[in-house]
């Protein structure tokens, strides 16, 4: 009788110890809790895999950990406006300039560029393959072929809207029959396009890293208006005093420095470079 009782008691004690130990761990924070900054960036940049290549290099050079929260450009800028991030790294120059004008950052600097590509089914039922994006979109609109738009205030979405405008298609009054807004990131949009055989605008970085291509392929590329510029901004400590401005500035300075620029140029998938450094130009 007694021995069974103590067995049960011992088991219970072990269990509660295990539970307590497990419970407390996340509250202790991560191992390297020393110097870190929070960077608001975009899903397309993260999903291209660039950060996995770039940030360890920065960490080694400076000892600073960069924690990336990847959301759409609009959301990233909102986060920074609220003071929930220390540095912003997005690709929507117009929105970034407004951000600076509103006083949330003191300056914006070019870091790198890549390009957008128009993706669609290999068979290309709308027959738009070529190198002129405006002409392609103009041709696509009346065919009723499915087109997936991110619809999420991202840099890619902003670019997509500009291109429709340049093609003379008014999405408000003359929305193409197959136009679908998913309100989602680049990856889910690509998934949707692959599943429904749709056209869409994507950044080359995410495309190159994407695995669920189905029978999608690049149909339009090389047009100058498909140019996609990335910029970096440090959140203004005058607006949000708690921001780790000094550390964030170190990052911003590094990424436009020769070391950072070289790291960017060195990132390749299958031998192909995804991003082209252009700081100071």
């Amino acid at each position, binding site marked *: 009788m007694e021995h069974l009782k103590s067995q049960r008691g011992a088991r219970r004690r072990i269990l509660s110890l295990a539970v307590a130990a497990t419970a407390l761990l996340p*509250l202790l924070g991560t191992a390297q809790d020393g110097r870190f900054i929070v960077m608001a960036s975009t899903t397309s940049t993260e*999903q291209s895999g660039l950060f996995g290549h770039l940030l360890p290099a920065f960490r080694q050079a400076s000892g600073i950990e960069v924690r*990336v929260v990847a959301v759409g450009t609009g959301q990233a800028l909102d986060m920074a406006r609220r003071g*929930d991030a220390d540095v912003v790294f997005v690709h929507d120059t117009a929105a970034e300039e407004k951000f600076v004008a509103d006083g949330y950052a003191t300056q914006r600097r070019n870091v790198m560029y890549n390009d957008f590509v128009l993706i669609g089914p290999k068979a290309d039922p709308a027959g738009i393959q070529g190198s002129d994006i405006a002409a392609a979109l103009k041709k696509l609109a009346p065919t009723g072929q499915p087109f997936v738009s991110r619809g999420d205030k991202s840099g890619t979405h902003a670019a997509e809207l500009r291109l429709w405008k340049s093609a003379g298609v008014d999405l408000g009054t003359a929305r193409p029959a197959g136009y679908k807004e998913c309100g989602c990131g680049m*990856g889910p949009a690509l998934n949707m396009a692959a599943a429904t055989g749709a056209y869409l605008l994507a950044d080359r970085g995410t495309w190159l890293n994407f695995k669920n291509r189905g029978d999608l392929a690049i149909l339009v590329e090389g047009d100058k208006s498909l140019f996609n510029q990335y910029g970096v901004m440090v959140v203004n400590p005058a607006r949000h005093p708690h921001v780790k401005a000094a550390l964030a500035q170190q990052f911003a300075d590094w990424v436009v420095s020769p070391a950072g620029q070289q790291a960017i140029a060195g990132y390749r998938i299958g031998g192909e470079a995804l991003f082209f450094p252009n700081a100071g130009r």
Partner: protein
Amino acid sequence: MRLRAHLDLDIPCRRARHPTVSVLSESLGTAAALLAQGDRTLWHTVALSLQVSGSACLLGAGFGIALGAALAAYRFAGQRALVLLLNTLLALPSVVVGLMVYLLLSRQGPLGSLGILFTPTAMVIAQSVLVVPLIAALTRRLLLSALAEGGDQLRSLGAGPGQAALLLLVHERFGLLTVLLTAFGRAIAEVGAVMIVGGNIDGVTRVMTTSIALETSKGDLPLALALGFVLLAVVGLINALIGLLQWRGARAPAEAMA
């Protein structure tokens, strides 16, 4: 998760009749390989998932059990309304909880100065909020049926509502364990809340569900599914262990099947 890069997965793949079937079988194979190879990133992610959801359940249990017990044992004005609210909150979407906690913890929010946004602590808080209604509702049900059975006799022994509730909680401890396991399942399976308040930061706040979401959005569906199977396997193992403890701890087998 850069698993594809450094895992040399050579899984024999029979030509399946249907692409979905082949994705499923490939994923099962990948899951088994992942578990066997013990990749460090994977186990760190699994450990974080368990810690976050486990802590959230314990924290939520503190509030949830007290709330559920109070609703069962006491009579007070507005009780019906509170129970209705509780049952409605069972349908609270995890992403909404995430959003509310985000606004709370954001620098512009009331608790912003704590600086815990985008940390595991924030995730624990969000998941606790998510499971409190579930734990409270289930505890209430459990206690109501226990009170129906023995409330009268406890009262005749001189127990007040609070004492009766406490005694019956001890009496129904196996049932409570099941309640906690249910809440744990809900917490570890959700992605909306932890994504928003955690930010899915690699190595810091990336858990199993947000990894699955990430791999899906990168188009690597087989890996995403495989991670899903790994998560199920881990949770299944925990349930089995607890079931074993329950069965051996309880002397009467009938009572152990809680």
